[in-house]
C-alpha cells in the first residue's frame, strides 16, 4: 500500500475531529468517552508523527504537500494547509507529545470518573490538539489566526476545567486576557505584512520585509515579538504561565508547557526567518537579551516554589529563554552575514525546542502521576515516593537530569550547541556588541547550574527520604497507560541525547528553508558518533562516547569491590540521629529550607517576606508555639501588574459614569461617533 504524505497529513485532522465528537457523544458514558476520545487522539497523533518524519526524512527538496481542506465559504478565506520543513518539525513536536500525553490520559482521566465530565475533557483535548496542529500547518493568515484563536479558547476551557476552585477561575481569566492581548498584537503585525503583500497566503509573505519601510518592519517585529512572546511566556509577560499551567489537569499542563507555548516559538521563527528578511542588529540583541533575562529569572523563581507544578511552569519560562538565546544568536548572525552560523544558532534553538517539549512533557506527566497518587501539589507533603512509585521516580529522574543539561541526555546536547553558537559569535563582528555572546553564555551557565539545584530539590524532596505526610506514605504506582506515556517521552529523551547527529539530519530541510544552509554533514564526525561544531577544531562532543566510556570504566570500581571488599558485609541501619530516639519526617530538610541560601543571596530580587509569631510563657527562647510564614512575590506582579490592575479598575469605574442606562444617551453617543468618523473620513 502506498501512503501519500498528504493522506498522513489530513488523517490526524479528521482523527481529532472524530475524537472530539466522540467525547461529546459519549458524554454520559464516561468509560466510552475516555477510550474513544483519547484513543482517537493517540492514533491521530501517531499519524502526525509519521507524516512529519516521512517529510523530514525525505531530506531537502521533498515537495511540500499542500491541501485545501474544504472549498472556501467566503472570499479570501482559504482553508489550505501545507507541510513545509518548519511546519513538519513543529508537527513532529506536537504529534510526539500528543501521542504520549493522549495515552497517558487514558489512565489519568479515570481519576475524574464520577467527579467531572470526562467526555468534555476529551473533546476539548482533541480540539486543542487539532487547533495547535492547524497553527503549525496553516498556509495563510486567516487560517492561522482562526486556529490561533480556537487554540486559545480551548486551552482556556481546559485550564478552567476544575473551575470549582477560585484559584483555577482566576488563573483561567488571566490566561484568557493575556492570550487575547497576544492575539491582538499578532493580528496587527499581520495587517502590516498584508499591507505590503496584498495577499493572505504565506507564500506571498516570504521575504516581504524587503518591500516594507524600515519603520513598519520594526513595528511589525515588535508586535510579533510581543504577541508570540506572550504566548511563549517571556519575562515580563510570563505571569499567566505559572498561574495557568499548574491548575490545569496534569495531562493538559504537559501539553501546554510542552507544545502550546512552542507555538510562540514557531510564530517567531516563521516571521523572523521567513517573512521579515535580513534583520537589523537590534532585533537579534533584543531577542538574545530577552532570552537571557527569561532564562535566569525563570529558574530563580522556580527555585522559590514548593508547588511541584508551579516549579515546572517556571522552568518553562527558563527554557523558552534558552531557546530564544539560540534564535537571537541566529538573528545576529543573519545581520552580520554569516548564514552558516545562523543555521547553527537555529539548530540550537530548535533542538532545544523539541528537547524542552519532551522533558517538560515528561516531568509534567510525572508530576501528574505524583498528584494522582498523593492528592497534593505541595512538595513539603511528599517524600519517599521512590519506594512507592519506583517507575514514575525513574522517569522523573531522567527528566530531571535532562532538563538540568547534564550529559549524556538531550538537554546537554542542545545547550552545548547553544554555547558553541554563542562562542563562535564572538568572532563575527568587531563591534563592542560581541561581548553579549560570552556574557549570555555565562548566564546560560548560571541558568544550568541553578536548574540542577532546583531539580535536586524537586526530585530529592519529592521522591527521596521519608514520606512527610499520610498521603505520601500510602501512595501507589499509577496505571500502566500512564507509565507508558512517560516511558515514550523518557525514551525520546535518551534517544535525542545519545544520537544527536541522526536527529540533526532531520533538521537539514528546516535550515535549508530558512537560511539556505545544511549543516548535518559539518556537524557530524566519525560516522555520526561525534557531534562537532562545524569543524573538528572548534569543539567536539559525543554523548554516546561518554556513555560507552563510562561502561568501559565500570570494571574499575567493580574490580576494586571484588579484590578488596569481597568479604565485607552490608547491613541496614538507622540514619545518624545525634543520639536522639530516631528521626521523624519532621526533622527532614524541606524544600523551602533547601532553597534558602539562594533566597538569601538573591534577596534584592526576591524581597522575601517572613512572618514569625512566637507564643511563650517566660522567655522567647522557650516558645510553646511557633508560626512561621515565608512568602516570595514576583517583583513584576508587585511593581507592574498590580498597579496596572488598580489603574484599569479605577479608570473603568470613572468610565462607568457615561454608561447611565438611558437609551437616549446611548443613541447620542452613537450619533456623535458617526459624526466624528465621517469628519475623519473627509
Amino acid at each position, binding site marked *: 500500500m502506498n501512503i501519500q504524505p498528504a493522506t498522513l497529513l489530513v488523517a490526524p485532522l479528521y482523527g481529532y475531529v472524530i475524537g472530539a465528537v466522540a467525547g461529546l457523544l459519549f458524554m454520559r458514558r464516561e468509560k466510552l468517552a475516555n477510550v474513544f476520545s483519547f484513543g482517537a487522539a493517540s492514533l491521530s497523533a501517531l499519524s502526525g508523527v509519521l507524516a512529519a518524519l516521512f517529510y523530514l526524512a525525505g531530506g531537502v527538496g521533498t515537495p511540500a504537500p499542500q491541501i485545501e481542506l474544504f472549498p472556501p465559504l467566503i472570499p479570501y478565506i482559504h482553508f489550505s494547509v501545507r507541510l513545509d520543513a518548519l511546519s513538519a518539525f513543529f508537527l513532529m513536536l506536537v504529534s510526539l507529545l500528543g501521542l504520549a500525553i493522549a495515552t497517558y490520559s487514558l489512565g489519568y482521566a479515570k481519576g475524574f470518573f464520577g467527579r467531572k465530565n470526562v467526555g468534555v475533557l476529551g473533546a476539548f483535548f482533541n480540539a486543542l490538539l487539532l487547533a495547535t496542529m492547524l497553527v503549525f500547518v496553516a498556509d495563510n493568515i486567516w487560517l492561522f489566526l482562526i486556529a490561533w484563536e480556537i487554540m486559545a479558547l480551548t486551552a482556556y476551557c481546559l485550564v478552567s476545567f476544575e473551575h470549582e476552585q477560585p484559584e483555577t477561575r482566576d488563573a483561567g481569566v488571566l490566561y484568557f486576557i493575556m492570550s487575547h492581548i497576544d492575539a491582538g498584537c499578532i493580528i496587527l503585525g499581520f495587517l502590516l505584512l498584508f499591507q505590503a503583500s496584498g495577499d493572505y497566503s504565506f507564500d506571498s509573505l516570504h521575504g516581504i520585509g524587503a518591500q516594507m519601510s524600515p519603520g513598519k518592519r520594526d513595528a511589525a517585529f515588535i508586535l510579533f515579538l510581543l504577541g508570540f512572546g506572550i504566548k511563549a511566556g517571556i519575562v515580563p509577560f510570563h505571569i499567566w504561565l505559572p498561574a495557568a499551567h499548574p491548575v490545569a489537569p496534569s495531562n493538559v499542563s504537559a501539553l501546554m508547557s510542552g507544545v502550546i507555548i512552542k507555538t510562540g516559538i514557531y510564530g517567531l521563527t516563521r516571521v523572523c526567518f521567513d517573512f521579515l528578511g535580513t534583520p537589523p542588529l537590534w532585533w537579534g540583541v533584543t531577542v538574545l537579551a530577552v532570552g537571557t533575562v527569561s532564562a535566569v529569572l525563570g529558574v530563580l523563581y522556580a527555585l522559590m516554589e514548593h508547588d511541584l507544578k508551579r516549579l515546572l511552569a517556571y522552568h518553562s519560562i527558563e527554557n523558552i529563554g534558552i531557546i530564544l538565546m539560540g534564535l537571537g544568536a541566529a538573528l545576529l548572525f543573519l545581520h552580520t552575514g554569516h548564514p552558516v552560523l545562523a543555521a547553527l544558532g537555529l539548530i540550537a534553538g530548535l533542538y532545544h525546542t523539541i528537547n524542552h517539549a519532551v522533558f517538560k512533557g515528561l516531568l509534567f506527566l510525572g508530576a501528574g502521576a505524583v498528584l494522582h497518587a498523593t492528592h497534593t501539589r505541595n512538595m513539603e507533603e511528599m517524600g519517599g515516593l521512590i519506594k512507592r512509585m519506583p517507575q514514575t521516580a525513574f522517569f522523573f529522574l531522567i527528566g530531571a537530569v535532562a532538563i538540568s543539561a547534564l550529559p549524556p541526555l538531550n538537554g546537554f546536547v542542545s545547550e552545548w550547541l547553544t554555547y558553541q553558537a554563542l562562542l563562535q559569535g564572538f568572532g563575527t563582528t568587531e563591534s563592542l556588541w560581541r561581548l553579549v555572546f560570552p556574557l549570555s553564555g555565562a548566564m*546560560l551557565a548560571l541558568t544550568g*547550574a541553578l536548574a540542577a539545584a532546583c531539580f535536586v530539590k524537586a526530585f530529592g524532596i519529592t521522591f527521596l527520604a521519608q514520606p512527610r505526610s499520610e498521603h505520601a506514605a500510602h501512595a501507589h504506582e499509577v496505571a500502566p497507560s500512564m507509565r507508558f506515556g512517560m516511558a515514550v517521552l523518557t525514551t525520546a529523551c535518551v534517544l535525542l541525547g545519545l544520537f544527536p547527529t541522526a536527529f540533526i539530519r532531520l533538521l537539514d530541510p528546516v535550515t535549508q528553508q530558512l537560511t539556505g544552509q545544511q549543516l548535518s554533514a559539518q556537524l557530524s564526525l*566519525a560516522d555520526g558518533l561525534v557531534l562537532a561544531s562545524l569543524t573538528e577544531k572548534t569543539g567536539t562532543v559525543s554523548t554516546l562516547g561518554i556513555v560507552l566510556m563510562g561502561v568501559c570504566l565500570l570494571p574499575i570500581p567493580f574490580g576494586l569491590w571484588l579484590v578488596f571488599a569481597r568479604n565485607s558485609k552490608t547491613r541496614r541501619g538507622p540514619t545518624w540521629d545525634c543520639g536522639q530516639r530516631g528521626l521523624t519526617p519532621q526533622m527532614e530538610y524541606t524544600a523551602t529550607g533547601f532553597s534558602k541560601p539562594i533566597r538569601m543571596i538573591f534577596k534584592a530580587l526576591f524581597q522575601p517576606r517572613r512572618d514569625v509569631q512566637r507564643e511563650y510563657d517566660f522567655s522567647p527562647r522557650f516558645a510553646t508555639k511557633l508560626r512561621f510564614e515565608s512568602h516570595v512575590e514576583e517583583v513584576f506582579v508587585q511593581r507592574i501588574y498590580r498597579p496596572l490592575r488598580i489603574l484599569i479598575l479605577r479608570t473603568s469605574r470613572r468610565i462607568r459614569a457615561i454608561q447611565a442606562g438611558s437609551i437616549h444617551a446611548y443613541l447620542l453617543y452613537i450619533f456623535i461617533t458617526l459624526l466624528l468618523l465621517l469628519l475623519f473620513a473627509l
Partner: protein
Amino acid sequence: MNLELPAILVQTALLLLLAPLLSGLIKNWKAKLQNRRGPRVWQPYFDVLKFLRKDMVISEHASWIFSVTPYVLFLTALAAGLMVPMVTARAPLSLFGGALAVVGLLALGRFFLALGGLDPASAFGGMGSSREMTIAAIAEPAMMLAVFTVAITAGSTNLSQIVLASQGPGWKFLDPAHVLAFAAMFVVLLAETGRIPVDNPATHLELTMIHEAMLLEYSGRYLALIEWGASIKQLVLMALLANIFFPVGLAADTTVAAFGLGLLFFVAKLIVLAGAVVLVETTNAKLRLFRVPDLLSTAFILAMLALVSTFLFR
C-alpha cells in the same frame, strides 16, 4: 577516529594513582605550615584501602539512588579526567568532549552526590546538598566565563586544541586576559574542591560542613569510591588550570623520553598549584556561608575583566 588504547590506559592509571597523592601532599604540607607533623603523604591510599575492606551500614531510608551515587561520582570524575590534557598535549579522549563536557560531567557527579545527601532523610545531608548546589550555581558562571576567555583566544572549546593553540606562535604568556582568567579559575578551584575559604575539608562540626555533610551516611567501599572520586576531581581541575594557563613541557609526541619529561613538568606544576592552595588555606579563615557569594562574584568580575581585556589588547 583513532583512539589510542595505551594513552587511555596510562592516563586512567595516572588519574587513579596521582589523585590520592595530591590530597595527601596538601594535607601534609598544610600540617607542616601549622607546626603540626601531619599525616604521611601516603595516608590517603591507606585510607581508601581501609575503607574498601570495611563493612557498610546503609540507612534504612535510603533508596537505590544512594547506592548508585558513588559509582556515578567516581566514573564521571574519571571520564572528565580523560578529556583533560595532562602529560601529553592531546588528551586521550578529547574527541568525546571539551571544556563544556568536563564541566557537565563534574556537574552530573555533583547532582547525584546532592541526591545521595538527601536520600537518607538526615537534615545534615539536606543542608550539605543545599549548600553544595548553591555554591556550585554561583561558581559556574565565573568558571564558564574564564573558560570562554581561553576558548575564544584559542578558537575552540576542545581542551587539547586550546593547549595546542597556546603552544603555537602569537600566544602571549602573560596576556592580561589569561592572568585575570587564571585568577578567576583559581577561586573557582577553591570552591569546587571544597577548600578554605569556601568549605573546610577538615571540619568535624556538622553545621559548618558542605561537602562532608553529604557524605555523613556513607561508609565502607562507597565512602572509598566517593573519597577517591573527589580527589580525582581535584586532580582534574588542577590539571585543567595547570595546562591551560601554563602549557609548558607537554609531550608533543609519544616517545618515552618526551612522556617522561612531560610527566616531570606536570608533577612540578601540580606541586606549585598545591603549594598555592596550601598557602591560601593556612592564611585564610573559612568564610561565613553568605560571604562566599562575594568571593565568587569577585571571581566572576575577574573573568569578566579577562574577557574585556581580550577585546582591548588586540
